[in-house]
C-alpha cells in the first residue's frame, strides 16, 4: 500500500458507483467487469504468475454458470448454496483438468485447455436434458436485497474484493515468489525446493474456484445463458486482458479488464471488429511491449519524475588518515 489515499478514493468510488453511474447500462457494464475480474484475478495467478498459458478458462466459466443455473434454477436450491456449489464445482473441474495437463510442456498445456473449452461447449450441447442444449437456461436472481441491479453490483463488488485480496496475499508472499520462479525457470524452482507441480496445481485449482464463482455471477447478470455465450473467443479475451495488463502484476490485468470490456461497448466500430481487435491488441503488445502496458506507465513515470539517485561522495581527509596511522604505530 504505497498510496493509501488513492486506494481509499478508488474504493469509495467503486462502492458508491450505483449512485453516480449515468444509467442502468453503465451499471450493468460495471457488474460485468466485476464478474470477469473475479475469473481473471484467479487466472492471473496461473497465467501471469506461474506462466501457464491457459486459454480455456471459458470452459470453467461455463461450468460455473451452468452449475448455478441448474442447481438454483432447475432444482430450486437456495442461491447462496448454489453459488458455493458452483465455486466448488469449478475448483473440482480445475483439479481434474490440471492434474494431467499441468505436467505437459507449454504448448501442449495450452492445447489441452483449448480442447477443454471446446469439450465443455460440446457437452453442454450434447447433455440437453440437463443444460437445455442450444435453447439455454434461464438463471434465477439472488434474494433481496441483491435482486436489483445495484444490489447485484454490490454483491459482485464484495466477491471481487475478496478474491482480489486473496490473490494479492498469494502474490506478495512466498507463494507468489515461488510461482514467479516456476514461470521464469522450472529448473531453478526445482533446485531451490519449490514443489513445481504442486504449486502450479494449487494456483490452477484456485483459478477454477474463482472461475466457478465468476461464472455463477456472470450467469445472474446475463439472466439467460446459451452455449453461444461461452465461445472460445471469450477465453481468448480473458487471456488477452492479462497479457496486455502485464504479467506478474495485479493492477495491470485489472486495468486491462476494465479497458478491454468497456472499449468495444462504448464505441460501435470496435464492437463490429470484436475479436479481430483483441487479436490485433495481443499481437501489438507481444511484439512491442512483452512486459505489458503497465511497463509503459513505469517508463513514463521515470521520465516525468526520475528517481533520485542518492550519491554521497566522501572527500579525502589526509589529516585524519595520518592521525590514524600514527595512533596505530603507537
Amino acid at each position, binding site marked *: 500500500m504505497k498510496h493509501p489515499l488513492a486506494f481509499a478514493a478508488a474504493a469509495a468510488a467503486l462502492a458508491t458507483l450505483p449512485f453516480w453511474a449515468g444509467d442502468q447500462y453503465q451499471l450493468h457494464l460495471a457488474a460485468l467487469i466485476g464478474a470477469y475480474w473475479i475469473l481473471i484475478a484467479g487466472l492471473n495467478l496461473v497465467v501471469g504468475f506461474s506462466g501457464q498459458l491457459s486459454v480455456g478458462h471459458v470452459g470453467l466459466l461455463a461450468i460455473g454458470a451452468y452449475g448455478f443455473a441448474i442447481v438454483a434454477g432447475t432444482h430450486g436450491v437456495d442461491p447462496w448454496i448454489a453459488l458455493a456449489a458452483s465455486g466448488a464445482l469449478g475448483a473440482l473441474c480445475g483439479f481434474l483438468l490440471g492434474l*494431467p495437463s499441468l505436467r505437459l510442456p507449454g*504448448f501442449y498445456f495450452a*492445447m489441452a485447455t483449448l480442447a477443454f473449452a471446446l469439450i465443455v461447449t*460440446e457437452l453442454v450441447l450434447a447433455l440437453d436434458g440437463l443444460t437445455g442444449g442450444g435453447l439455454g437456461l434461464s438463471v434465477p436472481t439472488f434474494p433481496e436485497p441483491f435482486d436489483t441491479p445495484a444490489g447485484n453490483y454490490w454483491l459482485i463488488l464484495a466477491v471481487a474484493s475478496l478474491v482480489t485480496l486473496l490473490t494479492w496475499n498469494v502474490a506478495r508472499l512466498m507463494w507468489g515468489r515461488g510461482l514467479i520462479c516456476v514461470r521464469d525457470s522450472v529448473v531453478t524452482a526445482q533446485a531451490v525446493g519449490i514443489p513445481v507441480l504442486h504449486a502450479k496445481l494449487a494456483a490452477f485449482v484456485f483459478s477454477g474456484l474463482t472461475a466457478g464463482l465468476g461464472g455463477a455471477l456472470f450467469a445472474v447478470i446475463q439472466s439467460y445463458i446459451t452455449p453461444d455465450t461461452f465461445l472460445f473467443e471469450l477465453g481468448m479475451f480473458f487471456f488477452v486482458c492479462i497479457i496486455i495488463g502485464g504479467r506478474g502484476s495485479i493492477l495491470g490485468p485489472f486495468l486491462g479488464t476494465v479497458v478491454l470490456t468497456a472499449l468495444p461497448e462504448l464505441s460501435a466500430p470496435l464492437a463490429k471488429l470484436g*475479436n479481430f481487435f483483441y487479436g490485433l491488441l*495481443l*499481437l501489438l503488445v507481444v511484439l512491442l511491449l*512483452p512486459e505489458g502496458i503497465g511497463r509503459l506507465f513505469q517508463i513514463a513515470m521515470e521520465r516525468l519524475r526520475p528517481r533520485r539517485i542518492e550519491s554521497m561522495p566522501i572527500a579525502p581527509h589526509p589529516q585524519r588518515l595520518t592521525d590514524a596511522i600514527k595512533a596505530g604505530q603507537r
Partner: protein
Amino acid sequence: MLSALIAGLATGALYAAAALVYNVMFSTSKVLSVTAGHTAMLGGVFGAWFMQVLGLPVPLALIGSVVVGGAFGLLTDIVAIRRVLARSDEHLWLLSTLALATMVQQAIALWWGTEPRPFPRVIPQDFGAGLLDQKYWLPVIVAIGLAIGLEVFYRRTLYGKLFVAMSEDIFAARARGIPTDRIRMLSYVMAGAMGGLAGFAAGQLTFAYFALGLTLTLNGFIALAVGGLGSNVGALVGGAALGILSSIATYYVGGEFQQTISVGLLMVVLLLKPEGLFGTRNVRPV
C-alpha cells in the same frame, strides 16, 4: 460402418496434412504455430471464392489457393515469428501466433460470413459415386503425396538437408554458414502452401468455413502429438487413427462426443508414451 471408416479416413487425412504443416514449421524454428490449421482454412475459403465468385477454372483456383496459403505462411514468419524468436522468452511465439490466427479467422468471418458455404466440384464426377466420391479420396491422396514429397525433399535436395540441419542444431547450422533466417522464411512459405493445397483438396468435405482453422489446429496437433513430433510417418498414422477413431465413435455413440473422444485419445497416448508413437525422446532441461 464402411462409410464411417472411409469418411473418417478422409477427415484423418486432413488432420494429417495439418500435422505435416506443423512439422515443416517446427523443423526450422522449433515453433508450434497456432496458424497451422488456418492455412488449410484459407485454402478452402479462397478456393471456393476463386471458383464460385470469380469463376476461375480449377487449375487457376488451385494455384491461387496455394499462393494464398504461401503468402499467409510468409506473413506468419514476418509478423509473428521473426521478432519474437529474437527474444529469449520461449512462449511469446504461442501468443503471437495465437493473435495472428484469431485475426485471420475474424477477418475471414467478417468478409466471407460465418456460414459454411459449399465448395464446387474439382474433377468432373457424377454425384452418385457414393463412397468412391472425390471428396473422400482427394484429401487422402494429397496427404500421402505431401508426406512422400516431404521425405524426398528432406533426403534428396540441398534445401531439404538444410532444413534437417536446422532442426538438429540451429546454432551449428548458422556457424556452418546457413542463412537460417531465409531458410526459416522458406519453410513457412512451404508450410503455408502445403496447408493451402490440403484445404483446397478437402474443400468438398469440410465446406468453405471460417471456423475450420481452429478445429484443424487442435486436431492436427493431436495427430502430431499422437504420431510423434517431427515425424512425417507419425503425422500420417496419427491423423488416420484420430480420424477413424472419432468417426467410429460418432457411428456408435453419436456425433455429440467427437471432441471429447479425440482429446481422450491424446491424453491416453501422452500418459503412456509422452513422445508419441514415432517420436524421439529428447529430454534435457539443463
